[in-house]
C-alpha cells in the first residue's frame, strides 16, 4: 500500500497524469472523519495483474470546501462521489444527494460531531 499526499486543487492534474485505464483499476472514493470539522479524502487505485499494489491518493480538507469531480477522467467514480455527498454532506460538482438517503434521513450520517 502506497499513500501519496495531494491537495484538492492539484488533484485533477495528479490523477490525470497517474491514471492509465489499462493499467490501474479505480476502486473508490473514500472519506474519513478526523474530528474537529476535518476530513481525509482518499482516492484508491489498484494495479491489474500485480500482487498487492494499492495506491491511495489522499487530501486533507474541511466540510465547506468543494471537492473536484474526477468523473471526466474516470466515469465510474460517479458512484463513489455520490456516496460521499450523501454520507458526509460534501459538495461535489455533478453529484447530488439522494443515492441512499431520503429527505427525512440523517443529514450526513458519517460526519462527526464538531
Amino acid at each position, binding site marked *: *500500500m502506497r499513500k501519496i499526499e495531494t491537495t484538492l486543487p492539484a488533484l485533477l492534474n495528479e490523477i490525470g497524469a497517474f491514471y492509465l*485505464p*489499462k493499467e490501474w*483499476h*479505480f*476502486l*473508490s472514493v*473514500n472519506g*474519513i*472523519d478526523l474530528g474537529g470539522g476535518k476530513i481525509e479524502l*482518499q482516492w*484508491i487505485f*489498484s*494495479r*491489474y*495483474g*500485480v*500482487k*498487492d499494489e*494499492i495506491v*491511495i491518493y489522499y487530501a486533507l480538507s474541511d466540510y465547506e470546501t468543494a471537492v473536484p469531480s474526477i468523473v471526466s477522467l*474516470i*466515469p*465510474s467514480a*460517479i*458512484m*463513489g462521489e455520490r*456516496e460521499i455527498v450523501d*454520507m458526509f454532506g460534501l459538495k461535489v460538482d455533478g453529484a447530488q444527494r*439522494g*443515492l*441512499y*438517503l431520503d429527505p427525512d434521513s440523517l443529514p450526513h*450520517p*458519517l460526519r462527526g460531531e464538531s
Partner: protein
Amino acid sequence: MKKTIQIPLGSQHISLLEPIRFKFECENEKIIGVDADVGFVHRGVELACTRSFEFKQVGYVVARVCGLCAITHTLSYTLAAEKLLGYEANDRIKYLRMLMVELDRIHSHMLCLAHTAENAGFEALFMQIMGDRELIMEVQEAISGNRIQFDYISIGGVNRDLTSELSALIRKNLGLLAEKIDTLIGLFDNNWSLSLRYKGVGVLSLEDAYTYNALGPLARAAGLATDVRAETSDFPYEEIGYKMILESTGDIHARNFVRLREIVNSIEICRNIIENLPVGEIQEKAKGKPNGEAVIRVEAPRGELFYLVRGSGQNMLDRVRIKTPTFSAIPAMMEVFKGSEYADAPAILASFDPCMSCTAK
C-alpha cells in the same frame, strides 16, 4: 412531440429478487438511456460498525450486509482487523477459510445461473439448478451449522473444525455436483432457446470494461484479466489449483460460461483443500486493540470486495469503509443496457448478478 417513452422497472417486480428501480428511456423497443435508484435497502451498517459495536463484534455485523456473500464480508473484515492486531493465521485456518469462500462462490454462482435461466423463460432449468444447489447448502450446513449467515470466521481463527466425516460428505457432494455441472455446461452451450436469448445480447466490450472499471465475472467475460485471488497474497491460491477463467465475447452467454467454469475450478480447489489440509489449531489468540489503517481486497462471487479499517487503539473503530462489487459495477451495467432491447432487460440484469443489499449497505 416527444420521441421517447419512459418505462419503469421495479422496485417490486417478479424478475427482481431485491428492490431496485430502473427508469428506461426507450425509443420504440430500444433502450437509449437508463437511470437507476439503488438506495432502497440502505440501512447504515458503516456507521453502526463504528458507533454501536466493538471491533470483535463487527465481523458478525458486516456479514449482515449481504446474505449471499456473507462469508467474504466477514473474511475481509477479519483479515483487516488481524492485520491491525499484528496476527497472522496458521495454514489450517487459511485453508478452512478458503474452503468456505469457495463453497460460497459455488452456491452464489448457481443461484445466479438459476436466475438467468428463469429470466430466459426456462422455469424447469431454474428448478433443476436450485435443486442441485442444495448439495452445497447441505455441506455448508454440516460444516458451519447454518445454511446462510454462517458466522464461521472469527478474529483469530474459525469457529468449527473439519472432521473426517465432514470431509467424506464434502467429497461425495462435490462429486455429484461435478457431474451435474458438466451437463449444465452442455445445456448452456447447446440449448437452442438459451442460445437465442443469450448469445450476442447485453455485450460489454473490452474497451468499455477498462473505461468503466468493470470487475468480477462481468470483466472476465469481456476478456479483462482481473481477479483479486491472483492479485493478493493473503491466501495461497496458486498452490491449490486456482486458474483464472477468461472469455472474450462479453455477452450474457460469456458471463454464464465464466460462472460455470469458475464453479468447476472451485470444485477442484475445494477437493485439493480437503486432500491437503494441514494440521494445526483452528482458534488462536489474537491479542491487543486495532491500531492503524489496513486495506484488504477479497474476491467475492461478484468481484472485488474492498475493506478499509482504521482504528486508534480503542475498542471502537474509527472507520470501516465497505466497497462492494456491485457498487462499482453499476456504471458498467448502465452502459450495457444502452442499445439493447427492452424485452432483454430482465435477462441482462439477472446476468450481472446484482446484489443490492451489498450496494446500499
